[in-house]
C-alpha cells in the first residue's frame, strides 16, 4: 500500500512537471521545472534498485546537460520571448498526433508478454553490490558498444567546438 502511494506521488509529479516544462512561456522556468523533474525521476530509479543510474541521472542530466541549456538560454532575448506566441500555428496537428500516439501505445500494451526472468535477482545484486554487477556486464559483454560510446562523445566534443567557434579570417 505504502509503495503504491509513493509511486502515485512520483507518477503524478513527474507528469505534472513534464507538462509544465513544455508549456511555460519563460525558457528559464522550463529548465528549472525540468531540474525538479530529473530529481523525481532519479528517486523513481531508487525505487527500482538502480542506485548507480540514479546517481548518473543527477550528475549528468541535472548537473551537466541542464547547465548547458541555461548557458544557451542566455543568448535569448527573454523579454521579447515572453511576449510572442508560445506555439507554432500548426499546433493542433501536433497535439492530435501526440494523443493518437499515446492511444496506440496503450492499445499495444495489452498484448505485452513478459520474458522469463534473468539471473540478476535482488539478492544476487545485493551480494555483489549494484555498481560492481553493472561494471562486470559493461566491461565484458558490452565492451564494443562501450568503445563506440566513447567515440560518440569524442565526435560530440569536436563537433561542438567546430560548430560554435567563430570563423577565423583566412
Amino acid at each position, binding site marked *: 500500500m505504502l509503495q503504491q502511494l509513493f*509511486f502515485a506521488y512520483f507518477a503524478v509529479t513527474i507528469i505534472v512537471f513534464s507538462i509544465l516544462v513544455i508549456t511555460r512561456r519563460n525558457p528559464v522556468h522550463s529548465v528549472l521545472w525540468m531540474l525538479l523533474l530529473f530529481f523525481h525521476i532519479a528517486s523513481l530509479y531508487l525505487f527500482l534498485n538502480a542506485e548507480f543510474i540514479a546517481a548518473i541521472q543527477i550528475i549528468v542530466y541535472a548537473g551537466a546537460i541542464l547547465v548547458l541549456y541555461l548557458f544557451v*538560454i542566455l543568448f535569448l532575448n527573454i523579454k521579447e520571448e515572453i511576449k*510572442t506566441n508560445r506555439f507554432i500555428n500548426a499546433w493542433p496537428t501536433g497535439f492530435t498526433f501526440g494523443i493518437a500516439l499515446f492511444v496506440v501505445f496503450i492499445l499495444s500494451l495489452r498484448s505485452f508478454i513478459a520474458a522469463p526472468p534473468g539471473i540478476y535477482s535482488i539478492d544476487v545484486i545485493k551480494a555483489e553490490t549494484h555498481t560492481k554487477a553493472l561494471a562486470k556486464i559493461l566491461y565484458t559483454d558490452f565492451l564494443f558498444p562501450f568503445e563506440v560510446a566513447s567515440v560518440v562523445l569524442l565526435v560530440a566534443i569536436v563537433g561542438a567546438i567546430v560548430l560554435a567557434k567563430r570563423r577565423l579570417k583566412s
Partner: protein
Amino acid sequence: MVPLNWYILLGTAVFTIGVVGFLMRRNVIIVLMSIELMLNGVNINLIAFSHYLQDLRGQILTFFIITVAAAEAAIGLAILIALFRNKATAHVDDIHEMQG
C-alpha cells in the same frame, strides 16, 4: 508491489508529452528539451523492465542512452549558437531557408 504496467504507462506518458512538446513549441531550446523528455520516458521503461525481469542489460542500455543524450545536447546547442550568429532567431517558423 507496484505492477510493471504502471511504470510502462508512466514512461509512455512522459514520452508522449515530449512528442507533443516537440511538435507544438516555437522555441528551438524547448524543442531540444522535449527530446530530453522523450529519452527520459524511454529510460524509465528500461529501468522498470530491468528490475522486473531481473536482468541488468536494461540499465546498461540506459547508460548508453544518457551518453547519447549528452552528445546530442552538446551538438544541438552548438548548432543553435551557430544559428543565432547567422539569423538571430530561436523560432522554428522563422527558419525557412530550405522552403520547408
